[in-house]
């Protein structure tokens, strides 16, 4: 199905779009070889540049993407492709680097750099420092997906306010009931209006957190992982909010979810 190296990029106009389907997207598959990684970095750089990302935002994002790609190269199975996807929209850029390798331990919430003599351990902290959104989803023997997001400044678009992110952190049980919710000061939508037992019914059909996890796992298993901004319908207010899953940690009976809303999100 996959050619050894293939790329397809689709760019549309620069009008900010609320629909994920209308956003400029890039998908690249490479075999896990050094020369192809350079190709993938170049494709990503060109895609972001063509979609208005300036040098100041591009450089740190490319550093993060390069680190994620380096990890994927190391862990990918021979012959199995690495998939790089990227999307630009509403003042932010996102990239996902997915492999089908042996998997890695997910990084802790707070990442510290190792001591100078350490051979390894700088990649995840570097990715975190270069991005506003950083998540790792990995399963032993199945693969790993690294999700990166960063806001950018563009005079043609609404300048995002970093202070508006993240949107909030919630702890939910297996039925999707919110056990704890810590909104951030700039969160405009109150918990009872958005988050509740029925929240996952609006979450692209995810009925509860178990289904959420299974969907996520299935994406990775199919190498069809796409974590892009998606619209969340706030039924109570009749508004649409573009939401990202910034970080997800699932235990046996509960999950911690860090949500981020696009700063350009608002009513429909």
């Amino acid at each position, binding site marked *: 199905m996959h050619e050894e190296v293939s790329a397809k990029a689709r760019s549309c106009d620069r009008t900010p779009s609320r629909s994920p389907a209308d956003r400029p997207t890039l998908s690249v598959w490479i075999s896990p070889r050094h020369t192809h990684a*350079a190709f993938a*970095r170049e494709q990503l750089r060109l895609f972001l540049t063509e979609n208005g990302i300036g040098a100041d935002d591009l450089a740190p994002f490319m550093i993060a993407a390069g680190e994620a790609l380096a990890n994927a190269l190391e862990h990918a199975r021979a012959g199995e492709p690495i998939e790089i996807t990227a999307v630009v929209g509403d003042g932010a850029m996102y990239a996902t680097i997915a492999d089908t390798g042996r998997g890695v331990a997910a990084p802790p919430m707070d990442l510290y750099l190792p001591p*100078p003599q350490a051979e390894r351990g700088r990649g995840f902290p570097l990715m975190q420092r270069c991005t506003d959104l950083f998540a790792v989803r990995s399963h032993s023997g199945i693969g790993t997906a690294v999700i990166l997001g960063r806001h950018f400044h563009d005079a043609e678009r609404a300048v995002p306010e970093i202070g508006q992110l993240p949107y909030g952190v919630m702890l939910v049980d297996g039925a999707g009931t919110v056990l704890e919710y810590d909104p951030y000061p700039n969160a405009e939508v109150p918990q009872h209006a958005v988050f509740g037992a029925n929240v996952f019914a609006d979450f692209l059909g995810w009925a509860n957190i178990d289904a959420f996890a299974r969907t996520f796992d299935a994406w990775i298993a199919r190498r069809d992982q796409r974590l892009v901004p998606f619209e969340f319908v706030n039924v109570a207010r009749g508004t649409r909010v573009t939401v990202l899953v910034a970080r997800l940690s699932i235990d046996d009976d509960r999950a911690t979810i860090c949500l981020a809303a696009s700063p350009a999100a608002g009513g429909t």
Partner: protein
Amino acid sequence: MKGPSSGNDPLMETRMASYRTIAEPKATIVRARGELDITSTRDLCKHLIDALARTVPCAIDLRDVSYCPARIVGALLRFTLALEQRTLMHALVLPSAPVARRIIELTDRSALFHGHETLREALVAVGARRAS
């Protein structure tokens, strides 16, 4: 030393990592160019080990590096620590703009490296050249 094969793509060829060691009487200069991907770490380490064996100060020239993963920073850190254990001076050529400087700064290790704008400044710093 050339990096891994890049096939027939001339554009890719120019971006491949390459390393060169220049042995001067009072210093060793290791020059890196291109995209220092993780697969080239071994090549870099070979040059650094050779430089370490000369037991003279070392200048590492990274001004033409267009990509540099954290793994390379780790290799450079271990190398500079090894030089310091041997009380040998070291300096990096890190002009203000390039990628390598930014990554080193992001990893909070800029204080451990002695960065300079030009090779000449680096060689003066390690005592291999006289300041004019």
